[in-house]
């Protein structure tokens, strides 16, 4: 299936989580932390560390490692503070 990362289409496998699909895509999917802007990638992949936070279909701060991919999903990488309204 196809999902979109910052507008780029990538192929994901049914059963993947958003974080797994992002890591497998080969794209630079590092987010920037809200505190210092440091780059991060998912650390635990089981819902405890919150380093996988992404914006999914316009909703910010979702745990990408817990959300299964769905056809046509729009993913945005979070850069620093969560934007107002997301």
């Amino acid at each position, binding site marked *: 299936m196809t999902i979109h990362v910052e507008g780029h289409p990538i192929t994901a496998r049914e*059963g993947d989580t958003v974080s797994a699909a992002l890591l497998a895509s080969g794209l630079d999917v590092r987010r920037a*932390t809200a*505190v210092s802007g*440091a780059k991060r*990638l998912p*650390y*635990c992949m089981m819902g*405890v560390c919150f380093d996988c936070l992404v914006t999914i279909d316009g909703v910010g701060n979702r745990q990408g490692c817990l959300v299964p991919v769905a056809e046509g999903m729009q993913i945005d990488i979070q850069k620093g503070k969560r934007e107002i309204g997301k």
Partner: protein
Amino acid sequence: MSAVPKHENYDVVVIGAGPAGLAAAEMTAGFALSTLLLDENAGPGGQVWRAINSTPVKSEALLGSDYWSGAEIAKAARDSGAEIIHRATVWSLDRNLEIGVSVGGGSAFIKAKRVIIATGAQERPFPIPGWTLPGVMTAGAAQTMLKSSGLVPDCPTVLAGQGPLLWLLAAQILRLGGRIDHILDTTPRANYIAALPHAFAFFTSPYFGKGLAMMREVRAKVRVTSGVTELAASGNGKLESVTYVAGGKRETLPAELLLLHQGVVPNVNLAMAAGVEHRWNELQLCWTPVLDAFGNSSIAGIAIAGDGAGIGGAQAAVWRGRAAAGSAIKAARSNAKVSDVSPQLRRAERGRAFLDVLFQPAKQFRIPQGDTIVCRCEEITAKDVLDSVAIGATGPNQLKAYRRTGMGPCQGRLCGLTVTELMAEARGKTPQEIGYYRLRAPVKPIMLSELASLPKNDEATKAVVRG
């Protein structure tokens, strides 16, 4: 499988569909108690049997027979009549056995006569310099991707740490054709001697033969360095190298992926937020709930089963699940014929003390120094924590006011143990005396819109306010 709970009241609500929760729910439903099983994951299996119904890795030998043994228990739970809901995150539980669960973008409140918490374990924090760099992950994270998506590392990879799961993961990665360049074993040498008195029980337990075979399988293929006493990850914006010290010699390895693991510890957030009494466990170096032989906690009606009750492994989790279920069934139907599972539980727990002592992580990998980050969410270092102690922070809850540690989205899951041990050491107290973060609902962040969408009856409002 249904989207939202069908009822508002259940005889038993089981939280977590790993070995403990599946076994418990199957049994209570089997005795015709109305049973609801809630789990945050997309499918059953918990950590050990993750993606048991959906893994693309179908060949039996690759994941091993211990993995596939989960299929039967998952099926039994599915056929038991228990209502099972996945992608359902429990964010609150209180002493009235009222449960707040977030499912399908909304929240629901349900009430139970008995609650069995089976939320399992998480990997112990491994705070080394550079552990927040992209390219540093837990071994469990790699295993999760392997089981759910069939993904294995194909870049220069270092696996560092200790414990049975480290070797299991290494074997699984290699069997799937993945790449591991070097294993850095941090097991303290002195632990081998300390563990000897417990060796007999271990040698006669099922772990022994399996563990040994797995270590041999891995050692035949990967360079292993033992006695590692220091570890650091470095790189600019991403991992570029891993530096370690073994036998007094410092070496640097180029690496794009560093997988860390030093054992697992109970996932305490939900139980602590419900008010369940926990104590510091000197052997496992973590908080474990105070429980009776059936997993019943200090709060009437709440039992804890599985690794959340103290690390015992998957087999013990199954039997603890059944013991807790038995107790719930007896409470509801005093004349029910429930068999005593304590012999099976004792057998499953055999050999654990040996593993606990042998794989007790070294102090320098639990209590970091200087600029090493302790709290990943708020980016607070060991030095920051010690500075706060110097100006008067006495425990983790005061520290929150100084540094916001534990107040980020992970709610202390990745810093709590470190903060307790670090402050205990700095203040010359025991971890028990220092204590832990006071945890509150919601134990997982929920969207405000979810709260807004809750039914506006008195009870629901009270539950939120109480939180």
